[in-house]
């Protein structure tokens, strides 16, 4: 079905950013615009989600060029779910950043760039053209470069160099892959590619091309041999920025991998083994890295890497149940990881530092906020009724069915280390008394009440969504079921894209 509303989430973000650019240096106006724009974006995303749930896959041909020739936008279940989650995260982060950022950063255009970043994310999720995906990736990385360097502290710039070098390298690999793919098939439309790639005789060339995509997306999503840029840069920007990055940017890599490897390069045994090895090592190295760090945001960064491995394993097993697990984990992960970095920002405000050895006594001083944070942390670990638990059930089930015992072991070790690290953090930050030697300052107490509310509210909102995902898992399982069915059998996607002729 042709539906021009697909572009609405992108345009809402674009116009929010443009209007904010007009209000340059008026930080108060920009804050209102940002929260308002995100709220409208959230409503639009809800509506799009409803439409897709009602009437199946929607497409939109740009400038009325029929499908394989023009650029096409596709809203299938996976895309709209991710757009919806991105909008929720965007709303929460824009609330948080309206008080959690220094005025200096807002003066130099934090808000417009943030909305350009979200626009890039929406576009990447909704496009059905592989070169257009590349362009949206570039929108994302150039905005993230600016967000990462904004403020210009030394540590930030140093982190940005590593982040920039690896991300540009990833784009080059991706672009090379696209060039080769166009050379082989003569098409850029992903649905069309899916058909044409099956007619190509030279399978070795396709294998090499798929490796280019694997490396490009692997760097973006921070998998095992390519993840070093992430823990060395994600702890440097302000928490609001780190929340956007940690929750959303690595997940775009996972999304692109899900899309490209289900639609264009259906994984053969070699690629599946490769993905599985990568997944196991990603889980193990991420978990081990998280064990030794004492700075909260540093071990959160390693936990991102560890949990990317869970999803990679789901893609590697490539069956309906495994993809259900991976997609469910993706849904849970976007919410929880974004919230975790917001929590880190709140802890920094409460205790004046992010070094666990210098923190303490938060539970005694702030019991209500501590309980709220506990919900987030328990969801992350996956204590049974909460959201992190359900996807692992599917992943375990499929791993046993396919006799992937290394992955099972890695999954168990990864989950246990996550539990240990979070328990350790709970003891250190919330239960332990404040160490007498530490000179910490509480930045939270002197704040006016509306600022306190704006700081805790987004965390509460996201925690509510996480609780909904966990306690109403059946609904999410249904969504994940539809998504994995569409991923395993892309004929519905292909029909929806190529069947829409305008004449």
């Amino acid at each position, binding site marked *: 079905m042709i539906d021009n509303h697909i572009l609405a989430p992108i345009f809402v973000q674009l116009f929010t950013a443009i209007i904010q650019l007009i209000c340059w240096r008026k930080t108060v106006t920009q804050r209102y615009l940002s929260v308002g724009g995100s709220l409208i974006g959230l409503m639009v995303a809800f509506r799009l989600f409803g439409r897709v749930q009602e009437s199946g896959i929607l497409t939109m041909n740009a400038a009325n060029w029929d499908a394989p020739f023009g650029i096409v936008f596709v809203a299938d279940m996976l895309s709209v779910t991710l757009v919806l989650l991105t909008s929720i995260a965007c709303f929460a982060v824009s609330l948080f950043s309206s008080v959690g950022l220094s005025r200096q950063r807002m003066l130099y255009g934090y808000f417009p760039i943030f909305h350009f970043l979200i626009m890039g994310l929406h576009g990447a999720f909704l496009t059905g053209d592989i070169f257009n995906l590349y*362009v949206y990736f570039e929108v994302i990385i*150039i905005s993230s470069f600016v967000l990462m*360097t904004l403020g210009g502290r030394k540590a930030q710039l*140093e982190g940005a160099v590593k982040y920039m070098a690896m991300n540009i*390298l990833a*784009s*080059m690999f991706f*672009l090379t892959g696209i*060039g080769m793919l166009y050379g082989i098939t003569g098409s850029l439309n992903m649905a069309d590619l899916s058909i044409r790639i099956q007619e190509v005789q030279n399978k070795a060339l396709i294998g090499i091309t798929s490796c280019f995509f694997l490396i490009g997306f692997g760097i973006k999503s921070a998998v095992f041999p390519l993840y070093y840029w992430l823990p060395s840069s994600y702890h440097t920007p302000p928490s609001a920025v780190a929340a956007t990055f940690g929750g959303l940017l690595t997940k775009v890599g996972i999304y692109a991998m899900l899309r490209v490897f289900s639609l264009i390069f259906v994984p053969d045994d070699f690629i599946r083994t490769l993905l599985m090895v990568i997944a196991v090592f990603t889980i193990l190295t991420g978990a081990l890295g998280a064990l030794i760090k004492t700075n909260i945001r540093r071990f959160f960064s390693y936990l991102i890497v560890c949990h990317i491995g869970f999803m990679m394993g789901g893609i590697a097993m490539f069956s309906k149940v495994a993809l259900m697990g991976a997609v469910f984990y993706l849904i849970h992960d976007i919410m929880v990881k974004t919230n975790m970095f917001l929590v880190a920002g709140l802890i920094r405000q409460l205790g004046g530092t992010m070094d666990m050895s210098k923190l303490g006594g938060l539970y005694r001083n702030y019991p209500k906020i501590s309980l709220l944070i506990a919900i987030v942390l328990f969801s992350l670990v996956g204590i049974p009724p909460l959201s992190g638990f359900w996807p692992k059930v599917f992943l375990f089930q499929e791993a046993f069915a396919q006799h992937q015992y290394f992955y099972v072991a890695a999954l168990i070790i990864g989950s246990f280390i996550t539990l240990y690290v979070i328990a350790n953090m709970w003891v250190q930050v919330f239960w332990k008394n404040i160490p007498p030697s530490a000179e910490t300052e509480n930045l939270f107490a002197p704040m006016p009440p509306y600022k306190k509310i704006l700081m805790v509210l987004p965390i509460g909102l996201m925690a509510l969504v996480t609780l909904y995902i966990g306690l109403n898992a059946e609904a999410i399982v249904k969504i994940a079921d539809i998504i994995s069915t569409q991923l395993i059998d892309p004929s519905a996607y292909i029909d929806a894209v190529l069947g829409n002729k305008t004449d």
Partner: protein
Amino acid sequence: MELLLVLVLGLLYAAGIYLVLRRSMVRLLLGIMLLSNGANVLIFVIGNITKGSPPVIGSMEKVFQEVYADPIPQALILTAIVISFGLTSFAIVLLKRVYALVDSDDLDDLNTPEEEDI
């Protein structure tokens, strides 16, 4: 002509990757530039390098009768050039700024333990 371009693009990729693997920031920058040019040449070669055969169909014909220069890769290159121009200029400014702060060209010196911000 095509063979020459293929050799050039191989050289660009090789030199780019070699430079990216160095520890110096300036070399990293040059490597990124060479790699992006290599990718552009790759896409250019893919679009059939033919002389004097524009992608225009004669009024009597329905489909192309002979080899023509594919216009899509050229549109792709144009986009890619603009993007890589933006990225490169950002990279230059960033690296200059880092050099001014750290006073070193060595990527291994970028490990200041100082952190702590909101």
